């Protein structure tokens, strides 16, 4: 069971990281901002893997403990936490060397949702293979 959850988490991590990298390129090009000292390939990949693999452990634990109800609870919890985390990019104080902090939430708020979106996107692949 955990093996499937693990690969589910890995697949979601990769998808979320790719989405973040593509969005970062588009956003930086469109707004001519530069947050590369904070948001770079390393941090985007690391964030995606950290969130998705943490989700893997929580998902596996809830499903093992509560069965089908655990999966439903997990979906709600993941969505609610993702939405609550929207406040983080607005609250962060950047180093003064970074200009235009006003555009920072525009870059990072969508990224907060990428792990959950990726998780739900690849979910059918791992459900159908049951």
């Amino acid at each position, binding site marked *: 069971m955990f093996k499937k959850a693990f690969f589910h988490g890995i697949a979601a991590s990769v998808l979320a990281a790719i989405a973040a990298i593509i969005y970062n390129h588009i956003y930086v090009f469109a707004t001519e901002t530069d947050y590369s000292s904070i948001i770079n390939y390393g941090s985007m990949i690391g964030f995606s893997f950290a969130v998705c693999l943490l989700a893997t452990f929580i998902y596996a634990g809830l499903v093992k403990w509560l069965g089908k109800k655990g999966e439903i609870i997990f979906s709600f919890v993941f969505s609610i936490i993702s939405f609550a985390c929207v406040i983080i990019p*607005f*609250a*962060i*104080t*950047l*180093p*003064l060397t*970074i*200009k*235009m*902090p*006003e*555009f*920072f*939430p525009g870059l990072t708020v969508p990224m907060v949702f990428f792990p959950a979106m990726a998780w739900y996107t690849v979910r059918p692949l791992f459900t159908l293979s049951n």
Partner: protein
Amino acid sequence: MKKLIYPVAALALLVASAFTAIKSQDWKISDGYSVKFDGGDPSGEFSGLKGTISFDPNDLASSKFSTSIDVASINTGNGMKNTHAKSDKWFDAEKYPTIKFTSSSITKTATGYAAAGALEMHGVQKPVTIPFTFENNVFKGSFEVNRMDYNVNTAEPNHGGAKFKVDITVPVTK
């Protein structure tokens, strides 16, 4: 008439050389300056420094600072705080777009110099004295500002700091 040519030429040169001496006291603000404020939370900096600096350590009587800062250039590191600071509740950047300092006298002190003058912020002008040093073509000064003196968000005296330490570093060139 011919006799007057040389005295007039000498006088003209004398007058011209006096202007050269006055010009040599004028300094241009270089890139790399910083105007930082620290009130705990928030803290940050302004980047729009402009003005004229006329300073000669050997002639403080004719030295003068006349500088201004663009309020909209405030950067606290947080976009929401920046927008908040520029709003009519705080600096009201639209109505009061600049913070100005004009010196009235500059004196020598034990540690450097002191510029006494008027600081105008948020439509209020108050006398201040800014102690500073001048070494290797860099002015460095530090002083304290109480935003309540300038009617900046007096409705919330405990929101953020009331007193701010301002640190100014201004490299200059002739």
